């Protein structure tokens, strides 16, 4: 009986140890996914958001991008290289047109074509309401490239994949 008790404690310690190591030293894949979690959190907007939070979010969003990021969004006429500041301003302007926003990412598949490069394919869904009260519901497949710069994974390219081609 005593032996079983010690075995149980040892197993518990091992499990806790693995969990701690995973939390303290996350894999590169987890680090990449975290950037998407932050982007989702910072783009999303509640009806109670004040001006201070809005400005902070704009700054935070900009911090997720490389100094120059390539955007390929055909149906929004957003194509070309944009600076971090331009992206931050664009995000702020887009958010100000919505009273409530919810951005969610699904089915993230992360691959590492190079040591400092991550390629992520995913589905992005943006729902919410415009300030005029219109319902928004947009779903797109995205292909993103992130580059590791000074231990941070930053977005360097976002492309909308055309699932349905008119």
């Amino acid at each position, binding site marked *: 009986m005593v032996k079983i008790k010690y075995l149980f404690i040892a197993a518990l310690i091992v499990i806790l140890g693995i969990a701690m190591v995973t939390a303290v030293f996350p894999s590169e894949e987890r680090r990449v996914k975290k950037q998407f979690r932050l982007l989702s959190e910072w783009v999303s907007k509640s009806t109670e958001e004040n001006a201070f939070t809005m400005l902070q979010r704009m700054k935070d969003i900009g911090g997720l991008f490389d100094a120059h990021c390539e955007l390929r969004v055909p149906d929004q006429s957003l194509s070309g290289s944009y600076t971090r500041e331009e992206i931050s301003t664009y995000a702020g302007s887009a958010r100000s047109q919505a009273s409530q926003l919810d951005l969610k990412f699904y089915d993230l598949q992360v691959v590492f074509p190079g040591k400092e490069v991550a390629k992520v394919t*995913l*589905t992005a869904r943006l729902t919410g309401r415009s300030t005029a009260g219109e319902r928004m519901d947009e*779903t797109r497949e*995205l292909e993103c490239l992130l580059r590791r710069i000074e231990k941070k994974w930053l977005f360097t390219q976002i492309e909308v994949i055309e*699932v349905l081609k008119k």
Partner: protein
Amino acid sequence: MEPTYHDGGVNFCWRFPYLFSQPKRHDVVAVRFAGSKVMLLKRVIALEGEQVEFRNGKLFVDGREIEEAYVRYPCHWNLSPRQVEKDCVYLVGDNRSMPMESHHFGQASKRRIMGVILW
């Protein structure tokens, strides 16, 4: 896919039929994005190699008008003729009352079709 299927409803997708046969015109299918968590429901209106167009809301395939009993709302779309590429099908929703620019439709690779909608 209003009014045939309602937003936020629960639908069942059956993958089996497309293991042995190809999607047919008027089938309602589930189309995947990057994975299988988010899908669109769309109707197949034209098959690979066919020419599809809309004239004042009427569907024409290879120049012949196609009857669409499931389109219940008034539609005034005009879309110039275009050929469906190899290994693709042309997909449109049943709610054609909205402006064509706001409607998500077009040709998609057959590899994206997950199955037929049972109900």
